[in-house]
C-alpha cells in the first residue's frame, strides 16, 4: 500500500502552463468544448468566482467534466472530449461553450462536474453545475435532494432570459454566507 500524495495549491502563476492561449501556445483543453457540428444543444456557461469578501477571484482555474448530449461519458472515441479548462479574468469571470449534457437514469439530473483551483486553496474543490430549466429532473435528483433548499440553489445555473443560444449563469462563492456547495466524493 502506498499513501496519497498531498495536494498543494495551484498558486498564482499557472496560466503559462495550464491556460497558455494568451501566450500563443496551444492549450491541452480550453473554454470551447463544442461547436455547431457537435451533436446536442450548444450552450454557454458564464460564471464568476468570488471570495469570502465577495471580491472577484482573478487567478482561479475552473475545470469541467461532463457527459455528452446522450448522457454517455466521453472515452476519447469522438471529437467531444467532455473536458474544459478556463482561468478567470480581471473580474473573476470565466465561460465555457459546450453542449448540454444528457441524463441517463443512473446519473441523475443533467449536470456538469467542476473543479475549482486557486491561490489560497490548498485543495481544489469539487462542485456540480445543474440547470434551472430542468426542474422535473432536478426535483428527482438524489444529490440535490440531499442538500437543504437554501444551499441547493448554489448548484443550479440559471438560464438567462435572452434570445439566441442558451446561456447559463453560475456563481462560485468560495466562502461565506453564499458559499457554494462543495463535495467530498
Amino acid at each position, binding site marked *: 500500500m502506498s499513501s496519497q500524495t498531498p495536494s498543494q495549491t495551484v498558486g498564482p502563476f499557472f496560466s*503559462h502552463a495550464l491556460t497558455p492561449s494568451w501566450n500563443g501556445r496551444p492549450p491541452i483543453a480550453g473554454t470551447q468544448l463544442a461547436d455547431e457540428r457537435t451533436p446536442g444543444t450548444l450552450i454557454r456557461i458564464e460564471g464568476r468566482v468570488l471570495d469570502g469578501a465577495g471580491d472577484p477571484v482573478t487567478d482561479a482555474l475552473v475545470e469541467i467534466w461532463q457527459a455528452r448530449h446522450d448522457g454517455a461519458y466521453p472515452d476519447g472515441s469522438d471529437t467531444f472530449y467532455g473536458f474544459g479548462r478556463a482561468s478567470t479574468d480581471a473580474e473573476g469571470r470565466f465561460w465555457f461553450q459546450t453542449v448540454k449534457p444528457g441524463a441517463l437514469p443512473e446519473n441523475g439530473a443533467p449536470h456538469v462536474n467542476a473543479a475549482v483551483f486557486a491561490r489560497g486553496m*490548498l485543495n481544489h474543490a469539487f462542485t456540480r453545475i445543474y440547470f434551472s430549466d430542468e426542474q422535473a429532473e432536478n426535483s428527482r435528483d438524489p444529490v440535490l435532494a440531499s442538500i437543504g433548499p437554501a444551499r441547493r440553489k448554489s448548484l443550479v445555473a440559471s438560464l438567462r432570459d435572452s434570445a439566441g443560444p442558451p446561456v447559463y449563469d453560475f456563481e462560485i462563492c468560495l466562502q461565506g454566507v453564499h458559499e457554494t456547495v462543495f463535495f467530498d*466524493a
Partner: protein
Amino acid sequence: MTANQILNPRDWSSHPRQAHPDYKSTLLRSQQHPLVPLPQSLSELTGPVFGHCGLTGQDADLTRNAVRDGEAIGERIIVAGRLIDESGRAVPNALIEVWQANAAGRYVHSQDQHEAPLDPNFLGTGRALTDSAGRYRFTTIRPGAYPWRNHPNAWRPAHIHFSVFGTAFIQRLVTQMYFPGDPLLALDPIFNATADAAARQRLVAGYSTELTEPEWALGFEFDIVLRGPQATPLES
C-alpha cells in the same frame, strides 16, 4: 485499475487542511462549510483522456521546448518517477503537466514582479503522458527560490508544480515537488499546511544516481500516488 471502481476517500491526514492561517491567502478562500459527501457515480469515476493531444518528447524537455536563440540557463536536471495509485498499480497514459520558475526564481507571468531576470530560452512549462508502467520523465532547469509577500522575508522553497490526471475525475491532483535538503522547507507555510510529517516528505523528491547522467544532469526521483480502488467492497 478496473474501470469505474469505487475509490478510497481523499486521505485527509495526508492532504492539507482547508484553512491554514499561516498561509494568508487561505483566509478568504477556504471553505467554511463542511464538504458534502457525494456517492461516487460514473460522473466522478470517469475522466478525460488526452491521447489525442499528440504530445512528443519535446513537450517534456523544458530546456528545449521554448528555445529561441540559445540555451536555457541554469543547472540542468532530470525529474522522473512513477504515477501509481494507493494499491501500487501503475496509472498509464495519464497527463502530467509541470510548471516552474526559472533558475533565477522568476516565472513567465505578468503578475510575477520578482526582480530577477527572465530567460528568453526558458518558459518553464512541460507536459507528458505516463507510459505503460506509469513512468514519466522531464528534463528541466533547477528552479530558483523566490520571494512572496505572505510574511516578512518570505521565500518559497524551490519547487516544481505538478498537475496530474488519473482515470477518474476525482483522482485529479495538483501538487508541488520540492528538493531534498532545502532549508526553506521548514519555514514554508504552504509545505507545512500538511500536518503530517511523513505526508510532507512525500512531496520531496529524492536524489537519484540512476537518473543522473554523467557530464550532463542531476537526476531526481518523484513518485506520485493517487487515490486507489477501495480494498474491501462495501457491504450492501
